[in-house]
C-alpha cells in the first residue's frame, strides 16, 4: 500500500538492472585471457509491455535489460575481444550509479520511518 509509489519501483528496478550489468562486466574481466571469448554488453531500455494481471490485459512500463554479445573483430591472436580498460571504466561507472541509487532509496526509507514515528509528537 504505502510502497506502491512509482519512485520506489523505479529505484528498485534500476538497482536490479545495475547489479546484472556489473555481473556481466565482471564475467568479461574474468575471461580477459580466455581464447576466443567475446565480451557481452548490457543496455537498458524503457519499454511498454502488455501483461496479464488478474485476467485483465494491462500495459506496463518495464525496464528491459538487453545483453548482447559483442561479435566485433579482435586484433588479438587468440580471438578474445575484451577491452580491459573499457571494462574497468564501465565497472566504476556502474558502481557509482549503484551506490548513488542505493543511498537514495535508503534515505527515502529512513524518511518514511521518521515520519511514521514522529507524527503527532
Amino acid at each position, binding site marked *: 500500500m504505502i510502497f506502491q509509489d512509482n519512485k520506489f519501483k523505479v529505484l528498485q528496478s534500476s538497482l536490479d538492472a545495475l547489479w546484472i550489468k556489473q555481473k556481466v562486466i565482471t564475467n568479461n*574481466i*574474468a*575471461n580477459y585471457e*580466455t581464447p576466443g*571469448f567475446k565480451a557481452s554488453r548490457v543496455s537498458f531500455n524503457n519499454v511498454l509491455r502488455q501483461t496479464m494481471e488478474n485476467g485483465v490485459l494491462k500495459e506496463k512500463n518495464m525496464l528491459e535489460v538487453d545483453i548482447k554479445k559483442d561479435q566485433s573483430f579482435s586484433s588479438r591472436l587468440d580471438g578474445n575481444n575484451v577491452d580491459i580498460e573499457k*571494462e*574497468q571504466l564501465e*565497472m566504476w561507472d556502474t558502481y557509482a550509479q549503484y551506490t548513488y541509487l542505493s543511498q537514495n532509496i*535508503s534515505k527515502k*526509507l529512513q524518511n518514511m520511518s521518521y515520519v511514521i514515528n514522529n507524527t503527532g509528537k
Partner: protein
Amino acid sequence: MSFLDTLKITGSALTATRLRVDTITQNLANISTTRTEEGGPYRRKLVVLREQELSFENVLNQSISKSKKKNGGVIVSEIVESDNPFIPVYNPNHPDADENGYVLMPNVNSSEEQVDLMAATRAYEANLTALNVVKTMTMKALEIGK
C-alpha cells in the same frame, strides 16, 4: 563460500590465473632440467582456459536444478604439454650428452614465459580490482536503511 555469484566469477578468474602463474614459474624453474621422472628433458606446460557460460535464462529453473546453473567465470579445463621440439645444445661435457656432444634441452623459452607472466599478472590485478568493487557494492547494499 560466497553466496554472491558475482564474487564467484571473480574468484574463479583469480584461481585460474594463479594456476597459470604457477605453471609459468614451473616452466622457468625447469628451464635446464634434462632428467624428469618420465625420462628425458622437461616439457613446457601450458594451461588451457575455458569460459563458463553466464546465463540469465529463467532464474526460477536455476534455483531448482543447481547442477545446470550457469554462473559465468572461467576455469582451467586442462594442463597440456607443448609439442614443440626440444632444443639441442652443443655441450659435450654434460652427463646427458649424446655421442655427438649434443644435449636435448627443455622446449622452454625464457622470454616467452616472461611475456606470459606479465599478461597473467595484468589479468590477476584487473580481477583483484573487480573483486574490491563488488565487495564495496555489497557493503553499500548492506547499508540500506541504516
